[in-house]
């Protein structure tokens, strides 16, 4: 199954200009084209784009993402420094996961208290630094 650039833009939330740019800077390998010269993206292209988006949300630069993509494509053949960079990013992600989990747990507690509280809402109190 293949997708046109407009479909991919809709699925990923990326603009068509961005998609073309990623191809230009080789973040995305040259996309297959049909006989009319229209790009036809495959599932691997989509998978790669989603990986790029996730990495960007983590704050990785395009240069770092490019290296991670090489690692992703061929982990056994990757250079030691790329493996090391990937490992560092993994540690960073684990830290963020831990922080997110903490935030999730805290908001879960506050949300449950709010639902069960007849008068004051603890969430507002917590957001006010306990001054409410």
């Amino acid at each position, binding site marked *: 199954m293949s997708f046109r650039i407009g479909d991919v833009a809709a699925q990923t939330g990326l603009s068509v200009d961005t998609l073309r740019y990623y191809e230009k800077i080789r973040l995305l390998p040259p996309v297959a084209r049909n006989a009319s010269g229209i790009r036809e993206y495959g599932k691997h292209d989509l998978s790669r784009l989603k990986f790029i988006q996730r990495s960007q949300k983590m704050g990785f630069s395009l240069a770092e993402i490019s290296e991670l993509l090489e690692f992703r494509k061929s982990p056994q053949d990757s250079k030691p420094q790329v493996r090391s960079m990937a490992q560092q990013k993994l540690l960073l992600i684990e830290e963020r996961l831990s922080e997110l989990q903490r935030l999730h747990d805290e908001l*879960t507690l506050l949300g449950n208290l709010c639902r069960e509280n007849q008068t*004051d809402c603890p969430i507002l109190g917590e957001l006010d630094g306990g001054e409410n």
Partner: protein
Amino acid sequence: MPNQQYSSPKMLIELLTASGCGACRAVEQTIGHVIDTLTELDLQIIRVDVVEEIDYAVSLGVRRAPAIALNGKLAFSLPPTEQQLREAILQLHGEQT
């Protein structure tokens, strides 16, 4: 006072509460009844407001109030019956001695 003066080690019961928590009073009564029946044990009850001590509450695993921790570990995340609480305390006491 030193632990040697007691026949059993001190056990800490933390009642994790919140303002406006309707079920908290009932759980407090449950704890009170259980403590009254376990006079041979050295039981200490502390009330912890989960909003004021939110970091501690979350680290214990508390997700709603009331909750009960025994010796620093979450034992009940829902109100227990008197029997359930008594059994939990006695089991922990058995593990301590």
